[in-house]
């Protein structure tokens, strides 16, 4: 049994280990090790296409996770006051949003946006009051942020809601009792209490968006995110440069996940 588990872990992690290992390979072929070097990291970070893709990914991840954190938190705060069948429906939708496969989200968002753009663009042309050509809505940053944000908002709601549920209600009453206005109580008690949840939600959303390939592949339009860049370069063969990029993405993601996990754990510290 133990051996079996060990085999599974090896199977899972050896490829990742190999990628990381070969990213430090001095040689130019992915197949043979020729001494330690960090030159591929330098080459990757000097490649304008990589830098551009990295920039796109970072902007999309930051924007979508920030928006998701704000609106997800607001939703999580409002949800306790929703009761009855409506609440059941909302809860189900939130969990479904997290469970739907990325490919479905990708295709669905693509079809939806293309349809909507198809209606709106002629309208824009017709109503545009200026001399130059009217701007056209198309896939790009907006659609990426929307599709990633959609998933991330559900994630944030679930995490923040757990924090709110775990919060001692009498803390709010104590603040009220001590003369704080409702806004004062929110700022000084509720917000600090749920902040770890918000931060963890933000980091998880960021990681998700930064790593995502499937959804981005459908809705990126002319934009290239880092995973899309990696995918398209692989068709030209795996180079140590790709390994270096993969290792960097892995490091960032793992780092953020560890931080998120740490924050969530610390938030659970017993207090009374």
């Amino acid at each position: 049994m133990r051996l079996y588990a060990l085999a599974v872990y090896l199977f899972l992690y050896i490829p990742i280990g190999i990628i990381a290992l070969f990213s430090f390979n001095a040689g130019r072929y992915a197949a043979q090790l020729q001494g330690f070097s960090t030159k591929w990291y330098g080459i990757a970070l000097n490649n304008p296409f990589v830098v551009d893709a990295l920039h796109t990914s970072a902007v999309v991840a930051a924007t979508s996770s920030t928006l998701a954190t704000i609106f997800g938190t607001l939703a999580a705060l409002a949800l306790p006051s929703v009761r009855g069948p409506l609440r059941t429906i909302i809860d189900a939708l939130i969990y479904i949003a997290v469970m739907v496969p990325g490919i479905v989200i990708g295709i669905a968002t693509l079809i939806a946006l293309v349809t909507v753009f198809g209606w709106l663009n002629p309208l824009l042309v017709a109503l545009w009051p200026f001399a130059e050509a009217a701007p056209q809505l198309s896939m790009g940053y907006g659609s990426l942020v929307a599709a990633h944000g959609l998933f991330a908002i559900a994630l944030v709601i679930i995490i923040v809601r757990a924090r709110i549920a775990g919060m001692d209600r009498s803390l709010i009453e104590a603040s009220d009792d001590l003369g704080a206005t409702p806004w004062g109580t929110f700022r000084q008690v509720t917000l600090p209490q749920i902040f770890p949840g918000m931060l963890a939600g933000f980091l998880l959303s960021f990681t998700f968006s930064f790593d995502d390939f499937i959804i981005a592949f459908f809705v990126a339009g002319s934009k290239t995110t880092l995973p899309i860049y990696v995918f398209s370069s692989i068709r030209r063969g795996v180079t140590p440069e790709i390994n270096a990029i993969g290792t960097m993405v892995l490091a960032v993601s793992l780092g953020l996940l560890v931080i998120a996990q740490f924050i969530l754990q610390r938030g659970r510290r017993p207090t009374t």
Partner: protein
Amino acid sequence: MQPDTDPPIAEFRATTKMFGEVGAARDLNLSIRKGEFLSFLGPSGCGKTTALRMLAGFEAPTSGDVLIDGERVNDLPAHRRPVNMVFQHYALFPHLDVTDNISYGLRQRRPRPAAAEVAQAVEQALETVRLPGYGRRRIWEMSGGQQQRVALARAIINQPKILLLDEPMAALDRKLRRDMQIELQSLQRSLGITFILVTHDQEEALSMSDRICIMRAGRIVQIGSPRELYDRPNSRYVADFVGKSNFFAGTVSRVEATGTALAVAGGLRIIGTAAPGLAPGQTASASLRPEQISLAHGTTTADGTTCVPVRVVNRIFLGEHTEYLVQHDDLGAFLVLVPRQAEASEGSFEPGEPAFAIWRDGTALILPEDA
């Protein structure tokens, strides 16, 4: 404590609170005097916390009024009421240290008091609750007893007109609870703030309060000083709740100025003082406190006493007193409290031994059966 005639600091006027079908508090009528230490005493679920929360502003009455300092406050939110509460589980803010917890109330004031002023008030509050130097501790670094002191300091620093305490001692161990009770009482005396305490611990209520308000199923059953409640309970329920008592059920056979007679089992009659409104033929209970009964080896025919043969069942040594559980053929089992010197003269009684239980006629209380 102020005399009865001064305006009350708080009042319930026909106050009722319903939670759906549940009447958590029903038709409460109570005037709370300025500077008094009042306790709400009653079993779990009788509405003590609900009454307190209506004063704090966390629950609005379904009908009737709540007044604080002469002003109707039914719709005044908690943060605008001049009262503060010590919560059962303290409800200290875990993300703030001790100082920031204690200064929380002052920091909500507009205009904001000066930082130096706040710091000094915190210093003094820590002094008062005997936690000097603990200001920069985190909450979870404090013991239960220390947390409770922080909760107390956080409330009294605001100099509320009324301090509300919801079973503040429930989470403390026995010894610590005793110490805190004494401390709370002296704190109340020195601050002169009106304290309202909720408890289901009768000893706590009896030892600390100026007045006790006994509740049952959402209603106030009796209000009075600990002594009044002990000596003149108005119902079997109160007599049972305040101190220990033996109850003998029977029928009122005679009501006279000199005493009321209750016919109980075995043709016996217990003579006592009746609560007003008892008429012959009514069922009632005679309440005899264990210390009102004595034990003897021999019978007595002294005038004005009742003497019944019993068998000693059990004996519990309590230090200054010994508590005996005795069994009478018709009356059943009851408790007798024998002081040390009485035992010295009469000798002790062994379980299984026959003995005589004696009480003076007229000492019993004849109480109506509870509605």
